[in-house]
C-alpha cells in the first residue's frame, strides 16, 4: 500500500531525535523510522522512540470531553464542557478574585501551546499563578546559570562533546534517560576523551567511565568546592581568565579554602586518593565539558551545586571555548516557558506549583487548569497533593490519558500528543525543531493549542485568540523574541533571523558588564538527616524503559514486561544486615508514608543508599514517600536524598 512519510521529532527526551512516521492513505500511522538527516541521532533511536506509536494508538486514549458526575465520568460535547469551565471559573473570579485560579502545564508541549496557555492565564483570567513542570527539572540549573553567567540558555551544542578532553558527568545517567547521547560519549571515548562519572549508583554510563566516584547523595557542593580548593592550592587555576572575564573570585577562594581534602573525604564518603585522582584528571585536561542533570539538582542545595560546578569551570577558565562548557540535560523536549513575562501584564510573580498546591489545601486557590501534566504522581508527598486537589471547586485536566491527576478532575479535555499537532519545540542545546502533524488525534480529541483558543473564546475573548494556523502564533511569539532568545529560545532561530551564530560567551558573558559572576556556596548539612529511625538515603531514578510518570510508556507491553513493578536497589551488605534477599517484598518507610517494592540486591549502589524508580505503578509510586523539601533558590523538590527505613514484609 502507498504510504506518506512525515518527518518529525521524538516526543520523549530532550535529544529530540529526528524520526519519520509512515502513514497509510487512510491517515493511520504504521511505522516509526529514525531519520539520518538530523544531527543529534543520525539514524539511531532508543526503544521509547521506536515504540512511541504503541501508546499513541492505545485504546485508553481520551477521545471525548468528560464531565464528573459524582464518582464517575460521563461523555460530554465540547460546548458543554467549555460552558462548564467558563461558568465555574467566572463565578470563582467574581467571588474570590482572579488569584483564586491557578494554571499548571507540562513544558513538554510546543512553544506555541505554552505561549497561548500563558496568554490565557495572564490576558483572559488575569491571574499571576502559572507554573510549569520544568520546576521539577531544569529550575535549579536555570536559576544558577542566570545568576552566574547572566542567561539560562544552554551554552554548548552537543557536538562540543566530540571536541573535548574530559567529559564530567555529574548526577546524570544518559544511558537511561537520554540513550542517544551515549553515542556522543562513546565516540568521544574512542577519540581519547576521558570520562568521569559522579553518581552514587553504578549506572551503565558509569561503566564507560575512566573514573567513577560514588559520592554520597547531596554532597556535590562539598565535592566541587574541595576540588576547586585543591586546584587553587596547587596553583592550577587560570588567573588571567579570572581577572579579565569574571568578578567575585576572592569570596569564593575564601569559602573553598575550608574544604580540605580530609574534610571533603569525610562528607562525601570518598577516599582522598580518589579525590586527588579526579583533581589531577581535571587539571590535566585543557578542555572539559560538564554534563549535569537531576542527580545534581534535585536536592535542597540544588542551585548551589550547579553554582559550585560553574565556579570550578570559571576558576580554571574552562568556559566559552569550543569543547569547554556545560550541557544541562533537560528531562524532555521542552517549549519556552519564560515568555511572556507577568510584569508586561502588570502582574506580580505567581506561585510555584507546590505553593499552588498548598494554597489549594488552605482553600485560597479554588480552581485549577492542568495541561498535560500529572502532578499527583510527580510531586512530592502525593497523598497531600491528592487531598489538596480534591478540595478544588473546579479542576480542569487536559491530557491524553486518564492519569492519576485526571481521575480527580471535574472536567477532562482530550488533548493531543506531539505527533498530532504542529509547532516548534526545543532540544537539549536550545535548538528549535519543527514538529509536523503526522495524523489526527482520535475522535473528538483536538490539538492542545486549539483547545486553549476555544477556552479563551468561550470566556468571550476572541481578539488575540483567533489564529488560523500555528504559524501565526509563532510569528506573534517571535515578535517578542529578543527577550525569548536570552531566555533559552533557539539557536536555529537566531541563525535564520540572521542575528548571528556567534559562540556563546566567547568574548563576553550575558550580564550587562560582560563578566561572569562567582557565587560562593557552602555545603550545608541536610535539615532532614538520616537517623536511627530512618538510616538509609533513598534515591529516585529513571529506568531505561519507562518515561517520567509512565502515563504513556506504562501502556506499552514491552516496557511493562521489562519493568513491571517498583523495585528497590539495595547493596548486598545492607540487605544481609536487614535479612533481605533478592526478590523479597519490602516496605520502604519515610516520615511521610510507606510504599511497597521488590528487593533487587545489587552491588551497583552505595551501602548507605537505596534506590527506587520514579515511575508510576499500579502498586504505588515512590513520590508517596518523598517528603516536602525544597531548594530555597529554585524551589526544586528534593527527590534524591530522602532518609528512609527498609523492612522485609
Amino acid at each position, binding site marked *: 500500500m502507498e504510504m506518506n512519510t512525515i518527518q518529525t521529532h521524538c516526543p520523549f527526551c530532550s535529544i529530540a531525535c529526528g524520526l519519520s512516521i509512515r502513514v497509510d492513505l487512510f491517515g493511520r500511522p504504521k511505522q516509526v523510522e529514525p531519520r539520518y538527516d538530523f544531527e543529534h541521532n543520525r539514524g539511531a533511536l532508543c526503544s521509547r522512540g*521506536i515504540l512511541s506509536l504503541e501508546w499513541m494508538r492505545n485504546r485508553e486514549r481520551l477521545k471525548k470531553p468528560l464531565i464528573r458526575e459524582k464518582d464517575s465520568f460521563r461523555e460530554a460535547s465540547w460546548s458543554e464542557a467549555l460552558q462548564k469551565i467558563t461558568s465555574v471559573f467566572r463565578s470563582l473570579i467574581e467571588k474570590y478574585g482572579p488569584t483564586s485560579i491557578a494554571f499548571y502545564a507540562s513544558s513538554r508541549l510546543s512553544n506555541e501551546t505554552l505561549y497561548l496557555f500563558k496568554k490565557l492565564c495572564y490576558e483572559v483570567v488575569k491571574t499571576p499563578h502559572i507554573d510549569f513542570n520544568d520546576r521539577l527539572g531544569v529550575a535549579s540549573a536555570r536559576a544558577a546559570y542566570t545568576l552566574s553567567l547572566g542567561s539560562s540558555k544552554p551554552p554548548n551544542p552537543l557536538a562540543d562533546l566530540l571536541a573535548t578532553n574530559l567529559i564530567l558527568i555529574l548526577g546524570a545517567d544518559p544511558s537511561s534517560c537520554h540513550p542517544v547521547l551515549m553515542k556522543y560519549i562513546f565516540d568521544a571515548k574512542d577519540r581519547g576523551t576521558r570520562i568521569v562519572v559522579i553518581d552514587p549508583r553504578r549506572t551503565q554510563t558509569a561503566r564507560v567511565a575512566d573514573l567513577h566516584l560514588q559520592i554520597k547523595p547531596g554532597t556535590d557542593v562539598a565535592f566541587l568546592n574541595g576540588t576547586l580548593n585543591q586546584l587553587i592550592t596547587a596553583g592550577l587555576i587560570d588567573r588571567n581568565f579570572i581577572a579579565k572575564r569574571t568578578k567575585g573570585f576572592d569570596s569564593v577562594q575564601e569559602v573553598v579554602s575550608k574544604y580540605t581534602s580530609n574534610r571533603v573525604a569525610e562528607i562525601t564518603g570518598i577516599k582522598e586518593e580518589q579525590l586527588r585522582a579526579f583533581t589531577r584528571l581535571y587539571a590535566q585536561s585543557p578542555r572539559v565539558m560538564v554534563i549535569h542533570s537531576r542527580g545534581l539538582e534535585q536536592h535542597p542545595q540544588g542551585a548551589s551545586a550547579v553554582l559550585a560546578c560553574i565556579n570550578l569551570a570559571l576558576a580554571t577558565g574552562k568556559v566559552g571555548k569550543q569543547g569547554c562548557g556545560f550541557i544541562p540535560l533537560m528531562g524532555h523536549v521542552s517549549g519556552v516557558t519564560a515568555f511572556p513575562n507577568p510584569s508586561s501584564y502588570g502582574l506580580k510573580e505567581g506561585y510555584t506549583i507546590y505553593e499552588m498546591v498548598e494554597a489549594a489545601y488552605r482553600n485560597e486557590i479554588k480552581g485549577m487548569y492542568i495541561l498535560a501534566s500529572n502532578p499527583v504522581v510527580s510531586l512530592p508527598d502525593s497523598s497531600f497533593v491528592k487531598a489538596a486537589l480534591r478540595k478544588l471547586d473546579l479542576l480542569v485536566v487536559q491530557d491524553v490519558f486518564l492519569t492519576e491527576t485526571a481521575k480527580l478532575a471535574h472536567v477532562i479535555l482530550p488533548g493531543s500528543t506531539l505527533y498530532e499537532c504542529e509547532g516548534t519545540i526545543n532540544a537539549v542545546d536550545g535548538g528549535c525543531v519543527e514538529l509536523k502533524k503526522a495524523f489526527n488525534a482520535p475522535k473528538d480529541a483536538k490539538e492542545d493549542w486549539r483547545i486553549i483558543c476555544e477556552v479563551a473564546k468561550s470566556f468571550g475573548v476572541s481578539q488575540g485568540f483567533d489564529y488560523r494556523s500555528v504559524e501565526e502564533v509563532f510569528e506573534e511569539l517571535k515578535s517578542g523574541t529578543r527577550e525569548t532568545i536570552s531566555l533559552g529560545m533557539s539557536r536555529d532561530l537566531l541563525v535564520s533571523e540572521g542575528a548571528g551564530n556567534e559562540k556563546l560567551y566567547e568574548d563576553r558573558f550575558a550580564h550587562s558588564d560582560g563578566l561572569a559572576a562567582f557565587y560562593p556556596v557552602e555545603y550545608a548539612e541536610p535539615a532532614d538527616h538520616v537517623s536511627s529511625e530512618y538510616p538509609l538515603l533513598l534515591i529516585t531514578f529513571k529506568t531505561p524503559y519507562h518515561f517520567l510518570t509512565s502515563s504513556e510508556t506504562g501502556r506499552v507491553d514491552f516496557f511493562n514486561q521489562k519493568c513491571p513493578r517498583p523495585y528497590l536497589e539495595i547493596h548486598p551488605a545492607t540487605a544481609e544486615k536487614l535479612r533481605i534477599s533478592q526478590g523479597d517484598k519490602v516496605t520502604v518507610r519515610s516520615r511521610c508514608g510507606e510504599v511497597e517494592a521488590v528487593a533487587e540486591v545489587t552491588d551497583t549502589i552505595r551501602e548507605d543508599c537505596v534506590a527506587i524508580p520514579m515511575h508510576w505503578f499500579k502498586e504505588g509510586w515512590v513520590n508517596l514517600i518523598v517528603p516536602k523539601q525544597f531548594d530555597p533558590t529554585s524551589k526544586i523538590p528534593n527527590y534524591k536524598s530522602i532518609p528512609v527505613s527498609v523492612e522485609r514484609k
Partner: protein
Amino acid sequence: MPEYGILVDFSRCIGCRACEAACKETNGTPEGINWIKNIRIGPEYGPDGNLILTMVSLNCMHCGKAPCIEVCPAKAISKRPDGIVLIDSAKCIGCKHCLWVCPFGAPQFNPAEGKMTKCVLCYQRVEQGKLPACVATCHPKALKFGTTEELSTYIREKAARRAQRASFYIIGLR
C-alpha cells in the same frame, strides 16, 4: 561471496533494549519471542575484584557450518549465498531439534503456529541496501553489520587507534 554478520561491541552496549524493540516493530514477532535478546551479566565481582556489569545483545549468528541445518529432519533450514540462515516455515515441523543444537539459543518455538522462528537478519532490508533494524537503531553503535571482512577491518582499526593513543600517553608519539 562474502558472508554477512552482526558484531556486538560489549564495551558499547548499555542495555537499553532498543534492538529488541526495533526487531519487534519490524518483524512483528509475537509476545515472548525475541529474535534478538539483550542479556545482562552481573552485577558480580570478577576474579580481580572488579565489578562486572555487562550487557550483550545476542541474535542468530548465521553460522558458517550451522548445526541447525545439519539436524533439521525436514530440511527446512538453509543458508543463502550471502550467509543468511533461514527457516522455511512451510517445511518446518516444529520438532525443536534446532533449539537443542544451537549453541546460542537462537531458534525459538512459536506455539501459535507450532513452528520454529529465528532472526532472519532482516534480509528484506538488507536486499534494499538498508541495515538490519536492530543495527540501524543502535545508538551507542554497539551493533555493527557488514561482511565478515568489513567487521574484522573495523576491529583492527579500533585496535590500531588504541595502540596509537597508548603510544601518545607513553612516548608522546602523535
